[in-house]
Structures are given as C-alpha cells and as structure tokens.
C-alpha cells in the first residue's frame, strides 16, 4: 500500500536529494515505503495470493533497505534510497527509474 505523508515530518536525518543534488533536512521529505515494488501491468491476471504479495508483503530487513522518499517540500520528486535500518545511515540515494543499487 502506498504510504501517505505523515502529519508532521522530522528534522533529524540529512538526506541527499538526487534531483536537487543537495543534502537537505529530513523535515522536507516524506518517506514513501519500500522501493522497487512495481505495480503489475495487469493486476487482473494475478491470483489473490500474488496480489496480496504486491499489496502487503514487505522485506522489512534489519540492514540494507531499499526505500522511496519524496522531496515533498523541495523539488517534489520521488526517489530511491538505500539505508541501513540498523543505523539509519544512508548508503545512497538515486533517481526514480535508475536500477536498484
């Protein structure tokens, strides 16, 4: 399920926006859930089980996590990031459509 931006955002992490090419405060960004989960081109061909996987199953790793953020109060773009969920450190951010890092 697509995530909605929360009611407030945070000013803790420093995030490099790959479009603005600048590190900006997290308060300008909205987290948007796990990355590289592609909406199937024809959902009607999917079984309930497959559809459930698309909708709900998430890798939720302790460690490297591919995720999407939106620079919602900046350039407005969604982009991808690799972050270590154990330390919250970003390994990379890259533009939407670029291959998984």
């Amino acid at each position: 399920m697509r995530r909605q931006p929360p009611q407030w955002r945070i000013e803790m992490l420093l995030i490099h926006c790959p479009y603005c090419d600048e590190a900006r405060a997290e308060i300008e960004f909205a987290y948007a859930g796990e990355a590289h989960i592609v909406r199937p081109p024809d959902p009607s061909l999917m079984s309930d089980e497959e559809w459930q996987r698309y909708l709900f199953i998430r890798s939720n790793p302790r460690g490297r996590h591919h995720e999407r953020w939106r620079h919602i109060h900046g350039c407005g773009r969604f982009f991808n990031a690799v972050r270590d969920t154990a330390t919250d450190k970003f390994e990379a951010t890259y533009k939407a459509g670029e291959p998984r890092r």
Partner: protein
Amino acid sequence: MTRFSAFSLFAKALGGHQSWPEQWPDASPKPDYDAIIVGAGGHGLGAAYYLAKKYGITKVAVIEKGWLGGGNTGRNTTIIRSNYLYDESAHLYDHALKLWDGLSQELNYNTMYSKRGVMMLAHNVHDVQSFKRHIHANRLNGVDNEWLSAEQAKEYCPPLSISPDARHPVLGAALQRRGGTARHDTVAWGYARAAAALGVDIIQNCAVTGIRRGADGAVEGVETTRGFIASKRIGVSAAGHSSVIMQMAGLDFPLESYPLQALVSEPVKPVFPCVVMSNTVHAYMSQSDKGELVIGAGTDQYVSYSQRGALHIVEHTLAAICEIFPIFRRMRMLRTWGGIVDVTPDRSPILGKTPVKGLYVNCGWGTGGFKATPGAGDLLAYTMAKDEPHPINAPYNLDRFRTGRLIDEAAAAAVAH
C-alpha cells in the same frame, strides 16, 4: 519458589534479605523441548507460563537474544484498555483485560495494575461521531466505555484544558474506567518467575540464527548462538524483530518495523489521576507510581531498527501535551527512549498458525501490544497446545490479507472529511 508476601518480606528482612532465592534460574539450553518460544517479552513469557499452567506442557524453553523483558515490554507507556470498536478487537483486548484483573495474585507478583481509567479526547465533530460509535458498540459487547462532556472530562482529569479557544478544543471524551496502567517490567518478571517455577527454562543471551525445517517442511528446532535446540513446536513472539525471525523459516510477512518514541518527565507529586489519549494531536500521557509523567508519541515515518530517539517527535509531542495540559509547560523532560514496533497493513496483530507446520506466530501488535500481554500469551499457548486457534484469535490469521477481511480499527476511526 519462595512465596512473596508481607510476611515473607518481614521474615527475610530480619535476615538482612540474605536468603531470597533467584526469581528465575538462568537456564542453559537442553537438547530438546516440547515447545520453544522465541522472545522473552511479556507475551512470550506469558505464553510459556500458560503452556505450563493451563495445558500441562512444561518442557518449554523461552529463548531471548538479550535479557528478558528488554524489548517493547520494558519500553512502552503501559496503557491498558479494551474499548475497541470491532467485535474481534473488543473480544481480544477484553480477554486480556480480564486476565490483568487478578494477575498479581495469580503470579504472586505485584504487576501494579491500576484501574485509573483511560480517557480518549474528542477534538472535533468527527471524533465525537467516532467515539460514540465505539461507545455504542462497546456497550453491546459488554465492554465498559462511557461518554463524558468536556466539563466531566476536566473533572476526571483536572490538568486538562477545555478552553474553547484551543487549537483543538476538547468537545468531550470516551472513558473506560477499567482501563489504566501496570508496571511494565514486573509483568515480564512475574511471568518469568511463575513460569520458571513450573519448569520452564528461560534462556537469555541466546539469539536465534535459524529455524530448521524437516523434509516435510515442518519445524524441527532452532539454530541459536548457543547451538541447535530441537522442538516440533515453535512460537515466535519477537515484536519488532518478527520479520527477521519469520524470514529464517522462509516466510515473508506483511510487517514493517517502525521506531516508536516515549518519554518521561521528572517525578512530581500526584497531579495526573488517569490516562489521557488524544489521537488528533498525537499524544498520550499518564503519571507513574513514581511520579513521572509518562508520555507516548507517534511512530517515526520510516522503517528502522535503530532504537534511536528522534528530536522532532519529542518537539511535536511536547507541543501537543502543552496544548492540552498548559500547566505542564515548565515540567521537564527527563528521559526519552525508542522501541521498535512491528506494524501490519491493518494495524491489528497476527496471532495463530503459519503456513509452516509447527511454527506459530504472535506479532504485528504495533503500538498496542502491552495491554494485550496476558491475553496474547494465553492465546498463543492455546494455539500451540491445540494446533488450532482459539475462537478469539481465529480472526487474526495471516489469510485475511489475501481475502480482504481486514480488522482495521484505525481505518474505522477514519479521516476527517
């Protein structure tokens, strides 16, 4: 087990408290068990206790990678209530609430369950409609929950500001008088001591590294940092780390883990007699028996296992607290901390069997796990003992995400229009 009482306390005092025994032995793993519980939080220890007490399965190990009660059991804001909307939820949480009542005596360990009432504030017309819906449903389900006017709410909790000029004025409140708080650590310790007395092994500092499955797919035991431990029945009750454990059995789960923040003030003399929650401004508060104001905030926006406190959440939570309780602006924050909560798509738990034979799960409690502790333990024990869910936890199966029969309390509270 030395029975705890004022008399034993007195007697031991005369001996300088030198002869108190260990409350639970620090067990080492045996080669095999009839049942293994992964995760020694309140839920897992409760499951072990009920397995031994109610279902006669005493050859049980509870495996904990750190120290017992060190996860969300020891990190939450200890709120207990059962005034949920849907039948499934009301039955689940009220089952727990009934077990809370009398738990101290059952465990011979004072869990300090205090029925001081949980009051949820309505700040707009939509809140009022939603709370009334809860109250009507609760009444017909036999769960206490009553509507208070703003003035009645203020009377019940004098620090509350009911100024109509507030940004989010209080229009009324829903009060569950049986709701309240308990001392979080003692719940884990009480279950641990009682379970150990029934023969349960509590194995701390033992991390599960794998789940071994046989040719037929059924579980055979767990690989741990202290070696392989065999069991045909494994119950996973690992809160924020459930995804990681389930993946060891090859199962992907509909879970995400988020940081949840809480904080306490410096202790002050009694000033706050109940629990107050406000979903609209995202804050909840009570006063501990030590005098600290215990304040919970929302979850962070991103998946994380870092348990690192976030300043923004603190800022917004305290702004909200000062808005509702402006007399506390000069109070001071003493300590903040974070827990990791595992959240399902419908924000209700998954409690039951899994597609892997012999593997049972209790996860996805999000921010609401503490209040369910005795109920979740009991139901996980039932499910493991009978290899089928109890009617109360049957709806909390994994299949609901496929079929669409979600139990979405938060959605039912809906968004403002």
